[in-house]
């Protein structure tokens, strides 16, 4: 069983204190949403959890081992991240980009094998991208590029996935279908999902835990139902919200 844990984690970017002495344990089978206003450092936190960002103090543990003591390859086999944007200087094809997800599993002297191509074909089919394998990445729409990134993430097969605004650019159908599927798959196989969300209601729908960043170093974390209160969210966003029950869950509407 995997777990990702922060101990007394403090992250700062410039004048913004993202979190101060944050100790939280992300456990196997849990789906977390990170919420907060623009610029409070949600992406920075996600990058830190992936080991891509320097932290001011504190520790991030993967299992019992500090993240920084784990080899880059092993780390990439365990933790995968979906970035907000693509910015390739020399864009490859859809297939090539999808296959980049296999990199952590291949040795220096190895090329992608039949098995890797098989995985890529499946993932592209699952994301409605079959038939587009040889298209140049630059010729795709934002939503299609996003789905290529998700396909690459599926090929990476990490136990822990970090998603930075996963529904960005995606149509309503893919928001629910693709992200919903991904979240359910990881939940069922005992993985961990931590995602930065803009849409409170999608967060309520998909995640069982919340991590709220207030932008002054203060953080709340816990079960979604425990934190989903009007006063908490109104303070979080600096705007009054009202809670309505629907389908056994709660939904929020800004006033």
């Amino acid at each position, binding site marked *: 069983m995997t777990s990702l844990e922060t101990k007394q984690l403090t992250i700062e970017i410039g004048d913004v204190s993202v979190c101060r002495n944050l100790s939280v344990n992300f456990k196997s089978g849990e789906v977390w949403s990170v919420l907060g206003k623009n610029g409070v450092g949600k992406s920075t936190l996600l*990058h830190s959890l*992936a*080991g*891509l960002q320097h932290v001011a103090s504190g520790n991030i543990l993967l299992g019992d081992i500090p993240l920084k003591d784990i080899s*880059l*390859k092993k*780390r*990439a*086999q365990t*933790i*995968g*991240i979906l*970035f907000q944007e*693509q*910015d*390739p*200087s*020399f*864009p*490859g*094809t859809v*297939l*090539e*980009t999808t296959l*980049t*997800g296999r*990199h*952590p599993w*291949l040795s*220096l*002297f190895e*090329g992608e094998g039949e098995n890797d*191509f098989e995985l890529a074909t499946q993932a592209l089919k699952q994301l409605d991208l079959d038939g587009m*394998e*040889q298209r140049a990445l630059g010729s795709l729409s934002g939503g299609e590029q996003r789905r290529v990134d998700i396909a690459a993430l599926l090929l*990476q097969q990490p136990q822990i996935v970090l998603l930075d605004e996963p529904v960005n650019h995606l149509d309503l159908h893919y928001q629910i279908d693709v992200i919903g599927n991904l979240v359910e798959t990881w939940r069922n196989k005992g993985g961990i999902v931590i995602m930065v969300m803009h849409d409170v209601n999608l967060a309520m729908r998909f995640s069982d835990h919340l991590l709220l960043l207030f932008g002054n170093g203060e953080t709340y974390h816990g079960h979604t139902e425990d934190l989903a209160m009007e006063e908490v969210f109104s303070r979080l966003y600096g705007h009054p919200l009202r809670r309505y029950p629907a389908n056994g869950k709660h939904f929020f509407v800004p006033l």
Partner: protein
Amino acid sequence: MTVRSRFRGRLALLLLLSAAVVSFYFALTFGSANTEWGAVLETIKSGSATFDHTIVMKLRLPRAASAFVVGGMLALAGALMQVLLRNPLADPYVLGISGGAAVAALLAMLLGWQSGLISIAAAGGAMLSMILVFTLARGRGDWSSTRLLLTGVVLASGWGAGISFILAVSPSSHLYSMLFWMMGDFSDSGPGYIRPIFLASSLATMMLFARNLNLLSNGELRAQSLGVNTLALRIGIYLVASLLTAIAVTLAGTIGFVGLVVPHMVRLIVGSDHRIVLPAATLLGGTLLVFAETIARTILAPRMLPVGVITAFIGVPLFLYLLRRRAK
């Protein structure tokens, strides 16, 4: 689908290899004294010191071999610099390595040094420039592409001013050879086994990391998240690309165009997988320069044109054609 794209890459490499062979055929037979291919083969086999033998083995073959190696080095270095700096306008000279070499070489010429010493001076200037950029770009452990690019570009323009200054104060008797050196010239190229070996081993090493290069060109964070040690990789690329450039410049001056455009031509033809791009660029760069060198010494014979002029004359229309074809 996948089999097809791999097949395409291999086919392209095979075609480029044939083109390289053709370029050597061209280089060995054409010249002020035309030599039949049969005679060329005969002289190579017989090894006797006939007039043809001297021309082919002592003049044409070494020049063609040097041109191939230099072209390969420049194209490979250009492809690497473009990945390193994440900038399609990057070329081997953008970080000022050639500028450093040129300033040192021109100073040596001004002091009346012999050609061997001029090469050593050029090598020294290139190394100095390489070390300067490397250390200056590295503030607080940060070694970002932008910072590296800016450091290199500023240093390069400094060297440029240095070159203008030297040209302005040099006696006119020196000017011709100085200009010719800068435009690119193979007139004193020895055979030398070290350069081809260095090119081959650079290519082989970078091929091992070609998949990492693909990831790096998708963005540094992205590459890190997939397990690439990007800092080490980028320093490695910098060293290899700089050394290739330094050696090429020392041997043949600053031949323009090859390092910038050949990698792009290759990407237009075979796509952006560096496992194909790197060997293809090396082959195409070498081939193009062998052709250019042959044309440069034959077209207005006995007058020799600077090779850099010919590479641009061939390359510009070829590149524009490929770009237009791709745009459709």
